């Protein structure tokens, strides 16, 4: 339990580092939230300077940081100039879309990736292993924005099966039945999830195959067989079960994507998620929104990694043991 509290404490350190670094970094970038629409003849630089002052975006970084921290302590993430709403509400609108998209995509990718990896390991060095290996490798090698557009054009334009982008149909009446809303949501999810599947399943399958091959060679597999346990049970309980550790760590690494979303997929599919939001916030220099996105992102990533650690402990009790052994000897 003490370790958990310690871990959470460290989590706050991470969040503080991320928030402060982003706060300073985005202000170093030239330009400000009012630098847009340059071809609007009526907008003069003097006017833009006046707006900067009005929204407290002038003054040195120090005073702005203190002002921001003070507001944060009162639970106010500040005002988003580009979305013309409080930052909290903008993120609250975007976050569910990313969690919804990336959650399903990651679940499917890990599920399919692990099964493919297991299949490869079971059929080691035979046709299935090589075919799956080549296909998954090919999938992960494609640039994501390019793959996204090809999937979009094929699925929604050349074969008009799915809608073109967006997370839901803007024409859906508010009183639509749950069934229609769900069907509409899933129809909009299909193509982005398919794209993510192709990109993420490959590394998962590769990792799972390598881990499984390593475990299948270990002695306890032979012991289990010697105990008369059936081959499928040996594979499932003794090989796959112990090979989950590396995949969970891979899951841990995918956490920022779960929360941060993929800028490319969200931009091509016009998916109103955190990735697209943060990208536009950076390019329009919407300071408070950028720091807000990064802050919420890192809080969830830290929380997620703590959960991943606990999960990997459950999966492989040795992990904790090694940690304390080593620290006992060396500290």
């Amino acid at each position: 339990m003490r370790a958990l509290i310690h871990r959470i404490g460290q989590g706050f350190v991470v969040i503080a580092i991320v928030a402060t670094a982003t706060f300073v970094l985005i202000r170093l970038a030239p330009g400000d939230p009012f630098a847009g629409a340059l071809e609007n003849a009526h907008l003069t630089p003097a006017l833009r300077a006046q707006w900067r002052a009005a929204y407290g975006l002038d003054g040195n970084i120090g005073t702005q940081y203190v002002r921001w921290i003070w507001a944060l302590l009162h639970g106010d993430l500040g005002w988003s100039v580009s979305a013309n709403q409080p930052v909290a509400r903008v993120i609250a609108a975007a976050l569910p879309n990313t969690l919804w998209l990336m959650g399903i995509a990651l679940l499917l990718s890990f599920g399919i990736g692990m099964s493919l990896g297991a299949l490869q390991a079971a059929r080691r060095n035979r046709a299935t292993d090589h075919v799956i290996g080549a296909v998954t490798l090919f999938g992960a090698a494609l640039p994501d924005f390019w793959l996204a557009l090809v999937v979009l054009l094929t699925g929604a334009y050349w074969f008009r099966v799915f809608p073109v982008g967006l997370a839901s149909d803007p024409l859906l009446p508010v009183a639509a039945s749950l069934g229609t809303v769900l069907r509409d949501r899933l129809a909009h999810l299909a193509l982005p999830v398919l794209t993510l599947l192709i990109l993420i399943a490959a590394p998962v399958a590769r990792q799972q195959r390598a881990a499984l091959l390593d475990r299948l060679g270990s002695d306890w597999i032979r012991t289990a067989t010697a105990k008369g346990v059936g081959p499928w049970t040996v594979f499932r309980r003794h090989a796959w079960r112990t090979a989950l550790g590396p995949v969970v760590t891979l899951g841990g690494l995918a956490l920022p994507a779960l929360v941060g979303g993929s800028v490319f997929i969200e931009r091509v599919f016009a998916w109103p998620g955190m990735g697209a939001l943060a990208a536009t916030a950076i390019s329009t220099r919407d300071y408070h929104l950028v720091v807000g996105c990064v802050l919420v992102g890192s809080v969830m990533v830290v929380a997620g990694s703590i959960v991943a650690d606990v999960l990997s402990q459950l999966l492989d009790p040795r992990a904790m043991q090694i940690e304390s052994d080593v620290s006992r000897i060396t500290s």
Partner: protein
Amino acid sequence: MPRLRALSLIAVLTLAGCSGTQDAKQAAAKDLTGGTLVISTAGGPDNLMPPITVQNSGLQVEDLVFQHLATVGPALNSIGDDGFTPDLATRWDWSKDSLSIAFHLDPDARWHDGAHVRAADVAFTFDLYMDPKTGASAAAQLANIDSVIARDSTTAVFWFRKHTPDQFFEATMQMQILPAHLLRSLDRATLASAPIASQPVGSGPFRVVRWESGRTIELAADTTGGRRRAHLDRVIFTQSADPVTAFTRVATGEADLYEAVRPDKVAEVVKNPQLKLIIAPSLSYNFLSLNQVDPATGKPHPVFGDRTVRRALTMATDRRSIVANIYDSLAVQARGPFTSAQASADTTLRPMPYSVDSANKLLDAAGWVRGADSLRRKNGTVLGFTIAVPSSSLPRVRASVLFQEQFRRVGADVKVESSDNSAFGARMQARNFDATIGAWAQDAGPANARDAWTTAAAARGLNNYGAYRSSAFDAELDSALTVLSATESHAHFAHAWKIITDDAPAIWLAEPRLAMAINSRFVTTGMRVDSWWAGIPKWYIPADKRIARDAPATAAR
């Protein structure tokens, strides 16, 4: 007011063609209300508060939600009040000395929240626009108005400092009348962050139903006070950041209108029976601006300070081919800092010829001698400069690379530096560039050139980024804007354009046309060159062409 000679519109204007008068009569006859227009856009508005809205998409929504006192006619005549159509004001009368105009408001006009529109609202709106704290971009254009008073509940009187040809245009088109009872108590310095800036209340044909930032804006036809409502039920703006995706939504029929069709998609739109392509002139022009001042030292620019070099560099570029490469048939080569659809245009002015030989001769004459490596040098320094462009604008990046190659052929070493929108904006405001691809989207008024190219505008904080200073040009422009006779004004404009194009402070590139794909079930009327969306309240869908989304929205929001 003396009648003005009808503007010489370019025949290609197809706007008039598709808004034939017999369609309008037919619409009035049958009940054509109903239908939903879905507009697919790439960007979205930053706020919906007329005095301080920046983004183009914001202006579109505001034109549907708010009202001007009167709106300029399709002929875009900005001299006097000829051709203006009544809007919030049903009629108006000038004082004898033309120094004051009394606007008589429509007595039935109501705000979307049901309150009556009063003359006090007009006075309040003028006060709000002119208050320095608001920071309204149109304040400069309203400077000629001394004051606005509400003589009685339905009459607002404008008092002017001087009688100018465009005084009626500025008074009506620069302001959209705002509800005083909702805005009186707001802190004017941060109007954008007021809730009403996201959920505006206007008196126009449409009211805002919902705005999910970054995603959709839904407008519904307003029917308060039994006024004559717009034909369409709903107008919905959907936002998708990637232009290709935005266009594809229209190609598959999920959306009805996309306003920026790329040249390579034109064939696809023409071939698609569901879509109709509308090409029309616009009021924007772009150019390669040559900074007269060296950003590093503040002294005249080593390369562009010399008029002969500027003329040589202009002649060195095949502008016609560059325009054809970027825009294909969707743009015309620009002649100067104006567009052919404007009253002030001089369509007889011929751009400088494309002739690499004379360019080389002029450069030699100017002392830039070509070295062994074919680069030109003058007492040691290479003829070189950078072109700054925003990475998000495809046409500008394309233009910079095309210019770069053509300058290389005459021995100039040119680099392209692209940065994202905000960094580029900051660079422009700090005038920290040698050359840049600039563009102006003008309003229908005559005074745009004054804000962009006069010596006054060259001062820090104003829009003459290239710091072009020519007293001759200033004088001609000033008289063009003050003389009352249209023919005289036109002659002054012509002289001004001759002066500035000869000085070549910029290489005039293109007048991009509006290229819009729209679902063929719509009958579009009342499109204007300065705003194609102005006529949306009069657009309708014939009964036999209605599709699923045209059915009246089952549940009112």
